């Protein structure tokens, strides 16, 4: 992340705009000096679907639910796990038993104390209901509560993604007594640092949060009242920030110059999301050519990543050949040199693979890919691949076996999530369920590894495997730009969970 004051923005862009899924906007800090109530008002591209713990989504929806609930663990701005509702945690040697020790000073918004039974009740309910979070707890077989402040998760298999999940939506603590009440979807009982101001909140339109001064972590949250406004349209968001209605919001590169001229502070969040091709059909089920690693490598060498960043993203991005985030374990800078833009070499690889005359393939084209389609058609054409885009509506999932490859833009995340989504056989970004003996060994090893340093090394090896085997053709890390009013500072990073801890008062 860097702060900037220069003039670097020229034309229009779509960059941050595309990232509605990963970006967001914030509004409103009014403040003050000696003890006056500080307020923050900001915009997000999307309201939470529901505030029921079994329906929660990570990402931008967290700004609201993350204020109402405590999660068992937390992730800091470096993506490292930190204590939260659980003061400490430990794995058994076989990584099949996870013990969490809870704080004893937590209470729900209705005044009842939070106990280990509440954690058990919430987790069991998530496991019993089909919803977005069940998969993140799939390794959990049973939950024991030896005393009021200890929770023991018994696992059916080791799961390196579990701790991170407990710092995300799967790890919220609800009040089992009220979870099944219809109000839970709109105004749940939680133990988080804020409560929903029912009178001023309009579901889907504006969420007003009042800080609970009796919350154990209230000092971390400088704003007494926070207003969150979902604004989907990028121009509407920009106008709201510019007019001072919002204290903070994300702006597109093309809007940044105006925002700066209007006296707003711009903060660049580098690597907020990753734009990439997932070369999914590595077994050649529908497109035999993609089963040859040389063809996948040729695709990687046909894309001029630096030029994409410059001309399609106004220089606001970083070329990359790997999908692990630079701030996290598993990332290895030298891997980015693996596939330089080299058409001659790429054509030679195609010829070696027996595809001198090329072949044709199609990919699903939607709102996320439009901006890049022409460039990719050209790049593929340069090495003899005739690429066509099948237009699909935005609600159609592209992560399917209907296409051998697809364009994907997703928010930066932790190594364990990258592995769970992109490398695991049943990962959502591995639609053909590709696997490999060597990879499976690495995945098993990292799942069982309880020593963080050794786990980091395994993540790096998994990353190397993905790059060498060209399972993907990553293109660039996209930079998000936050515009904030003078009283508010954006202090998050690309891997910060999207909750109120990314905002602070500017001193």
């Amino acid at each position, binding site marked *: 992340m860097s702060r900037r004051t220069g003039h670097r923005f020229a034309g229009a862009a779509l960059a941050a705009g595309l990232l509605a899924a990963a970006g967001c906007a914030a509004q409103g800090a009014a403040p003050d000096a000696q003890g006056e109530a500080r307020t923050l008002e900001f915009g997000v591209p999307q309201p939470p679907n529901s505030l029921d713990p079994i329906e929660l989504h990570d990402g931008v929806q967290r700004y609201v639910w993350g204020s109402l609930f405590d999660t068992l663990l937390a992730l800091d701005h470096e993506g490292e796990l930190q204590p939260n509702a659980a003061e400490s945690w430990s794995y058994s040697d076989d990584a099949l038993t996870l013990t969490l020790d809870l704080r004893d000073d937590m209470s729900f918004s209705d005044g009842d104390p939070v106990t280990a039974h509440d954690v058990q009740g919430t987790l069991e309910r998530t496991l019993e209901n089909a919803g977005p979070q069940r998969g993140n707890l799939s390794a959990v077989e049973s939950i024991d509560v030896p005393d009021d402040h200890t929770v023991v998760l018994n696992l059916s298999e080791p799961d390196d993604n579990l701790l991170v999940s407990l710092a995300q939506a799967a790890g919220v603590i609800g009040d089992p007594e009220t979870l099944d009440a219809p109000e839970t979807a709109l105004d749940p009982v939680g133990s988080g640092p804020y409560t929903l101001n029912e009178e001023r909140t309009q*579901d889907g339109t504006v969420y007003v949060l009042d800080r609970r001064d009796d919350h154990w972590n209230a000092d971390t949250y400088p704003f007494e009242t926070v207003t969150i406004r979902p604004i989907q349209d990028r121009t509407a968001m920009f106008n709201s920030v510019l007019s001072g209605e919002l204290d903070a919001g994300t702006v597109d590169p093309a809007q940044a110059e105006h925002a700066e001229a209007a006296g707003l502070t711009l903060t660049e969040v580098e690597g907020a999301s990753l734009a990439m091709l997932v070369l999914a059909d590595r077994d050649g089920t529908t497109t035999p050519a993609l089963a040859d690693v040389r063809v996948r490598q040729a695709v990687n060498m046909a894309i001029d990543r630096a030029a994409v960043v410059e001309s399609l993203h106004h220089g606001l991005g970083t070329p990359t050949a790997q999908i692990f985030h630079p701030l996290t374990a598993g990332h290895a800078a030298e891997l980015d040199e693996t596939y330089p833009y080299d058409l001659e070499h790429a054509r030679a690889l195609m010829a070696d693979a027996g595809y001198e005359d090329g072949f044709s393939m199609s990919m699903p084209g939607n709102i996320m890919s439009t901006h890049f389609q022409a460039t990719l058609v050209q790049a593929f054409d340069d090495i003899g691949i005739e690429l066509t885009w099948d237009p699909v509506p935005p609600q159609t999932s592209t992560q399917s076996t209907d296409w051998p490859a697809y364009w994907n833009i997703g928010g930066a995340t932790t190594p364990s999530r990258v592995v769970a989504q992109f490398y695991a056989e*049943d990962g959502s970004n591995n639609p053909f369920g590709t696997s490999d003996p060597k990879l499976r060994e690495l995945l098993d090893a990292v799942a069982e590894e309880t020593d963080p340093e050794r786990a980091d090394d395994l993540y790096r090896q998994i990353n190397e495997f993905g790059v060498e085997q060209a399972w993907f053709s990553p293109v660039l890390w996209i930079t998000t730009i936050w515009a904030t009013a003078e009283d508010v500072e954006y202090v998050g990073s690309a891997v910060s969970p999207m909750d109120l801890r990314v905002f602070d008062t500017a001193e």
Partner: protein
Amino acid sequence: MIPYIVRRLAAGAGLALVITLIVYLLIGTSFEDVARTILGQSATPEATAALLEARGWDRPILVQYVEWLAAALQGDFGASVYTSLPVLPEVLSRLAVTLSLIVPALLITATLSIVLGVWAASRGGVVDRIAQGVSVFGYIIPGLLLAIGLVVLFGVQLGWLPATGYTRFGDDPAGWARSITIPVIVLVVGGVANMSAQVRGRMVDELRRDYVRTLRTRGVSSRSIVLKHALRNAGSPALTVMSLEFINMFGAALIIENVFALPGFGNYAFNATLQGDIPVMLGISTFGVVLVTVVNLATDIANGWLNPKARVH
């Protein structure tokens, strides 16, 4: 009269049935996509299958439609697949927002159009050219551009009006008026451009009719001829234009509400369509059809009152 109204409403209901079935068939094949969208990044094949089963989406499309229809006939339009909130109350509250925008816009449009159209037709000359100029101006300015321009001027630069957002009338009437001012202006500009030209054209025709000449020879004042005779005859087509304008504005709300982040019907429809929220799309289609039917019916009845020849028996 009553059998006529019943017939028309029944036709509207039939139309709603056909349209919802078409909507259902058009989108119904993508339940798996909906399930994947709900699950997001944790959409493993097993999780997707489990969700499809839990929600009953793995059953044949037509079975699901018939079930939806049976429930809808009893007033239960189901719940959003994403938020689990019931569709009916949400549609009604969204409609209230959109109508609170469209009704004032329509009244202002009608008033301005009649004044402008009548004035232009009866005075002619410079006045007529000004009126036509206004009309052409309204036509050539794209609504979206006008909306953004007005927001930048009044919302961002001058700070007189909110750039985005909606205040409920019940919470703060003045705030409500401020929040709808720019959207209403945008709708009125487009509406007046269309409707004033229609009123003017019709009035010009009426004023050339034989009965007008007869009235003049009898010494009836120009004012009386224009306002009492010609305008009443021109009123009927103007009313039809007004009903079309209402439906137009309903369509325009889809864009306007997004530009101003207003929680209306158009915004609801837009998001539901983007996400493939099937029960919401069906609820919206049903209410859209019902609304258009009712407006058309009301227009026909009002036309009958204005013009005995158009009266139904």
